[in-house]
């Protein structure tokens, strides 16, 4: 068995709302240039794991035509049908088993141009209760969660707008982000189109065309790829029950359990102190304080103070989504994996304008399902 697994290479596309190339070429060029950067060939990779989804790809068995595009032709290959961070989790397990030394993980979708995101989300709801009733969907679930948080902790619409602007400013300095709104103000967010209040259009993540590829390796094999590996020291994943009326929308016991497991593996006792920054997969801006608190990064209900003090900003006590997060780009299936790539970039001090100073330990998160029913958490260290 291998004892430690590292992120040794990563690359994401420049995400867009209307990709100039088809998905096959998008992932082919991404992986090819990642290989070139690292000076490796596909023969240096033992196993390839896709993160894609038949519904977001609009076809049955979504990887049928993508296999050769990432170099996995006649190679060991499989597919996780969830966010890419789950594929990274599977790759991590495969390497830990000792049967593989290296793995390439890729997540992608054309969420900006090729399908209506709410339609794939509707297909994610059960077909016989929520779907025909038409009341509960990904948006209204997020709104009910946001509303519960805001009422309980006196978190105002203005606080939420400030938090949105914080992320969009970060996204503006992120060369990969699709959504660029450099001049957006708190007022703009407050006045943006109401959807399911308190959720407005400006709070919604930027569903985009894009891909992210990450290479993981055993400690033994890491030297071949890089001198600055980023170690995956803790992982956890957990799922909640399905019906929203049975969930604890604020406590998010399942997310909290996944985070605790990852912290325990990484030997982290006090995440508030020991974690230097977080990259969270938020489909809506309002999810940020809820997730961060469930993950033990801030005191429950502290969202208002965190926004006021700028604690989650790049210069703050515990920056959250210094990349801008999914508010800047949310290419479904790649989004959580991008969090891992962004965290690795930060830890290697390659994050440019968004660099968090002195960052050594990060927590990375991904979600699937309505209201983040399934969550995956990684702790990574330089």
């Amino acid at each position: 068995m291998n004892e430690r697994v590292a992120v040794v290479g990563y690359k994401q596309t420049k995400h867009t709302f209307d990709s100039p190339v088809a998905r096959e070429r998008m992932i082919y060029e991404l992986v090819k240039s990642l290989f070139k950067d690292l000076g490796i060939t596909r023969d240096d990779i033992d196993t390839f794991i896709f993160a894609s989804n038949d519904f977001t790809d609009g076809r049955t068995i979504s990887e049928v035509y993508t296999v050769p595009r990432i170099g996995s032709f006649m190679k060991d290959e499989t597919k996780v049908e969830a966010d890419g961070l789950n594929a990274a989790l599977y790759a991590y397990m495969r390497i830990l088993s000792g049967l593989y030394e290296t793995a390439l993980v890729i997540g992608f979708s054309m969420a900006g141009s090729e399908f209506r995101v709410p339609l794939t989300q509707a297909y994610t709801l059960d077909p016989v209760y929520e779907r025909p009733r038409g009341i509960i969907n990904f948006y209204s679930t997020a709104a009910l969660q946001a509303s519960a948080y805001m009422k309980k902790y006196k978190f105002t619409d203005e606080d939420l707008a400030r938090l949105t602007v914080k992320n969009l400013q970060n996204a503006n300095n992120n060369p990969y982000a699709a959504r660029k709104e450099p001049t957006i103000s708190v007022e703009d967010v407050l006045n943006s189109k109401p959807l399911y209040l308190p959720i407005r259009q400006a709070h919604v993540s930027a569903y985009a065309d894009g891909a992210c590829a990450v290479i993981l390796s055993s400690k033994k094999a890491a030297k071949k790829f890089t001198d600055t590996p980023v170690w995956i020291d803790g992982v956890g994943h957990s799922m909640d029950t399905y019906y929203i009326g049975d969930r604890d929308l604020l406590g998010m016991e399942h997310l909290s359990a996944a985070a605790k497991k990852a912290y325990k593996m990484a030997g982290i006792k006090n995440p508030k102190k020991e974690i230097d920054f977080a990259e969270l997969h938020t489909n809506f801006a309002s999810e940020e304080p809820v997730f961060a608190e469930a993950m033990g990064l801030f005191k429950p209900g502290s969202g208002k103070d965190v926004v006021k003090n700028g604690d989650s900003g790049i210069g703050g006590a515990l920056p959250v989504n210094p990349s801008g997060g999914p508010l800047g780009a949310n290419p479904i299936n790649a989004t959580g994996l991008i969090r891992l790539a962004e965290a690795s970039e930060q830890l290697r001090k390659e994050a440019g304008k968004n660099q968090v100073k002195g960052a050594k330990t990060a927590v990375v998160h991904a979600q699937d399902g309505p209201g983040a029913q399934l969550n995956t958490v990684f702790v990574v260290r330089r």
Partner: protein
Amino acid sequence: MPGNVVRARVPITFSYKNRVGHALEQYINGLKEKKILGVKCPACKKVYVPPRTVCGKCHKPIDQMVEIGQEGVLKNFTTAHVTIANGEITDVQQPYIIGLIKLPGASSLISGIIKTSSVPEVKTGMKVKAVWKETTQGDYNDLAYFEPA
């Protein structure tokens, strides 16, 4: 060099006939009689709405249907300015309220539309009651909405 990718529409819609299942079928039949049904776990005594055939906590199969009260407390709500159907987000003329309601006898909160004379009137903690269609036919619309009790 690549660029200007040409996109072809696939003008085909797949059709499905998804099965309602044992527990929900009874729930829908209950609606026809203007009843809200849940299932009670024999082990932990929790009552789930909508009903299902298992308790997710105790992993015990459950089939004991119980009737739920129809007047309860609004626990949480959102004011909707849009609807989502067929993946399209469409504006509505009149904003409406989607609420999570605690009905007596149920452990689950039930989601539903809240109708009031004006939106600002809605507050969490207010009492609401189920309003039924005059003639029920055994579908989800039979339970039309909730209104202040």
